[in-house]
């Protein structure tokens, strides 16, 4: 289902506000500048930083800057949207961010933004590295579809930190000068920024809209794309199918276009796969050439750049284009200035560490015929848990319980797994997913792998990896830090490892939402499976590794499928914090339930336990303890969630 865009707000290296973005882009200005905010000795000193936040006094507590950008962009978007008639608990927030500085949990940053903007509906965080905010725009469509909100403020925010600069530098992907996507020399330039769209249900008249989106996983490598661009291609094809448009109808593609040796040719191959012969004449440009790579916010700032251009009858350019690199788009709009064009439909594409790929289709609302999505039933095909003994029994008995996961080797669960680079959190998640697939008797094979998705609820990266990374930095400085540990610092790193080891290549996402994250991930997965014909089944769950604040750790995963099994997901819903009753009412449809499961009874309020509650619900029905189970959880100030499981022979 499409959503019209009633407001836009943005902060980028080209300035604050949509107006500044437009007027400077029209002049052919670049936002890439010298980094003054922190020391860059021995590193590339260029980035697309927000100009008036480039002084050293802004270096401390990057999360504050991230929240500040988000609030300002959100305010601009809401001002344009004029949502006076909409109650605050019917406005949702979906923020994409991959900020590497983990002082402040990402979901907490989203909560702060929600509070500042007066958003009291569900506040969700998508963290899939460079596809975070692209994915956020798509998730907004699902929230509107489910009637969980009347308006969704969707987008993202990210800040450039010394850690990120050093990390990308150590991977050898930074250009010496401002990046030249599709041209020479190869390499990317980092950036930062924030942006939001206000999305609402379609209405009469011609408006700019988000028309559909697609997700895929590559499972190829932690930090590099599959050279055939297969993930990007599948995400684009899924987006086109979701929007109900043909590749031939697309007028322009805003590419991920980082400029690196690995990305550009892979992306070009993806474009050829999706657009065929037309790729040779399709305009394809990279906004990173003047904004920098805004990481988690890349998707939203590039989509807004596209929308702003479409509104004004132009297409965004690629800067620094001189000689074409082999295997790059034929028409990169390489003159550095926007080109006059009438655009009805465009695709914005991004790809990320961990193998995540996401594309959205944007354009004129009248360019597509309205379609009601066909919803299919979703069943719980299997569950798998990795935890200390007795967690499910304790949960069903309403007892406090928790603790560490007993030692095990990943090779014992997945014989072909290479245990290197698999930190505890990745091990728990992958083993739980493998057990769930085993329980469901569903091992994805052949083509089924591309039709099996993965959605993970998680709030913190691996404690072990984070500690080890800090140690390498303390002893050797940023320049001597470990590149592989750096790549584990994005919140979707465990999802990426899981998807690679189990070859799960369908729709792929990572959600943070406080202690509700696991259940929210399962709900998002159910929604995707219900509506997307390209998916056959989907693995979803929540995971935590022990931390100083909470010793309990583990992972719980479910396999949701289309094939009729003994247990059906009868209803699900999200609501703003403090509105659990609304979510429960929607999920149950006001029908009675035999059993209510609340993971907070265990005493551990973490993503893992909210997914464990789902597994406990499945067990309860299998054991004949109940025929209809309500699983609920309240996720701090992020979101409340409810889901109903039902034995299929129940009336």
């Amino acid at each position, binding site marked *: 289902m499409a959503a019209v865009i009633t407001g836009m707000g943005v902060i980028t290296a080209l300035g604050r506000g949509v107006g500044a973005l437009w007027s400077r882009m029209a002049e052919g200005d670049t936002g890439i500048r010298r980094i003054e905010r922190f020391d860059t000795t021995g590193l590339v000193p260029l980035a697309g930083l927000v100009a008036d936040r480039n002084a050293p006094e802004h270096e401390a507590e990057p999360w504050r800057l991230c929240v500040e950008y988000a609030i300002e962009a959100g305010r601009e978007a809401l001002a344009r949207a004029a949502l006076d008639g909409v109650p605050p608990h019917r406005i949702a927030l979906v923020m994409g961010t991959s900020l590497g500085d983990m002082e402040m949990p990402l979901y907490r940053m989203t909560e702060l933004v929600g509070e500042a903007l007066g958003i009291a509906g569900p506040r969700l965080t998508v963290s899939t590295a460079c596809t975070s905010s692209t994915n956020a725009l798509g998730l907004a469509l699902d929230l509107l579809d489910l009637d969980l909100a009347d308006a969704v403020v969707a987008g993202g925010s990210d800040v450039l930190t010394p850690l990120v600069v050093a990390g990308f530098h150590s991977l050898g992907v930074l250009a010496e000068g401002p990046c030249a996507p599709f041209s020479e020399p190869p390499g990317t330039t980092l950036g930062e920024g924030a942006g939001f769209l206000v999305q609402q249900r379609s209405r009469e008249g011609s408006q700019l809209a988000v028309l559909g989106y697609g997700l895929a996983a590559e499972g190829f*490598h932690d930090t590099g794309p599959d050279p055939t661009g297969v993930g990007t291609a599948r995400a684009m094809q899924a987006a086109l199918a979701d929007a109900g448009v043909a590749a031939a109808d697309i007028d322009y593609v805003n590419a991920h276009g980082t400029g690196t040796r690995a990305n550009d040719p892979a992306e070009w191959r993806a474009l050829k796969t999706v657009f065929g012969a037309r790729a040779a004449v399709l305009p394809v440009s990279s906004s990173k050439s003047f904004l920098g790579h805004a990481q988690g916010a890349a998707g939203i700032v590039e989509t807004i750049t596209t929308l702003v251009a479409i509104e004004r009858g132009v297409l965004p350019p690629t800067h620094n284009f001189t000689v074409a690199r082999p295997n790059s788009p034929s028409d990169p709009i390489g003159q550095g200035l926007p080109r006059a064009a009438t655009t009805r439909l465009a695709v914005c594409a991004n790809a990320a560490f961990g193998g995540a790929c996401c594309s959205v289709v944007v354009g004129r609302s009248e360019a597509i015929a309205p379609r009601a999505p066909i919803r299919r039933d979703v069943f719980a095909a299997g569950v798998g848990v990795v935890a200390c003994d007795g967690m499910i029994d304790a949960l069903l008995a309403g007892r406090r319980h928790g603790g560490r996961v007993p030692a095990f080797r990943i090779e014992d669960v997945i014989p072909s797994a290479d245990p290197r680079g698999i930190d505890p959190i990745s091990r728990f998640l992958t083993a739980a997913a493998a057990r769930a697939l085993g329980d469901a008797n569903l091992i994805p094979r052949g083509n089924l792998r591309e039709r099996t998705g993965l959605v993970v609820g998680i709030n913190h990266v691996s404690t072990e990896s984070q500690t080890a990374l800090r140690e390498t930095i303390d002893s050797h400085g940023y320049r*001597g830090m470990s590149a592989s540990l750096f790549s584990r610092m994005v919140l979707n790193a465990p999802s990426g490892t899981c998807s690679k080891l189990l070859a799960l290549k369908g729709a792929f996402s990572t959600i943070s939402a406080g202690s509700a994250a696991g259940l929210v991930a399962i709900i998002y997965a159910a929604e995707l499976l219900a509506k997307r014909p390209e998916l056959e089944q989907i693995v979803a769950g929540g995971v935590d590794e022990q931390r100083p604040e909470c010793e309990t750790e583990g992972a719980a995963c479910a396999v949701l499928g289309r094939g009729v099994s003994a247990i059906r997901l009868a209803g699900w819903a999200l609501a703003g914090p403090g509105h659990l009753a609304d979510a429960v009412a929607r999920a149950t449809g006001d029908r009675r339930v035999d059993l209510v499961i609340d993971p907070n009874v265990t005493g551990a309020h973490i993503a893992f336990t909210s997914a464990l509650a789902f597994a406990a619900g499945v067990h309860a029905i299998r054991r004949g303890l109940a025929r209809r189970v309500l699983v609920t959880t309240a996720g701090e100030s992020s979101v409340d969630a409810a889901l109903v499981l039902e034995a299929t022979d129940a009336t």
Partner: protein
Amino acid sequence: MRPESVLGHVATREQILAKLRHVLITRLKLRRELDELDPDAPLFGSGFGLDSLDAVELVVCMDNELGVRVPDGGMLRQQMRSLNTLVDLVIAQQGAA
């Protein structure tokens, strides 16, 4: 009885091999024991199965732990084919120092 020069040469190589094996196990997390790491076995692709991310890690470790700068670009891969080629590089740089 081995000639003195050979003994000295071998001792130097064994010492550097020991340091490199230690790096592979403790920093790159190879699940092998020291004596399993043959000096001519390939590091990347087959052999020990290191990947591009490990290559970056190894360069950093060579600098941090052995004080050796691995040259950039094309030179990188030819110096990092096996433990023996890495030892050759260390000896060459230490000899130049």
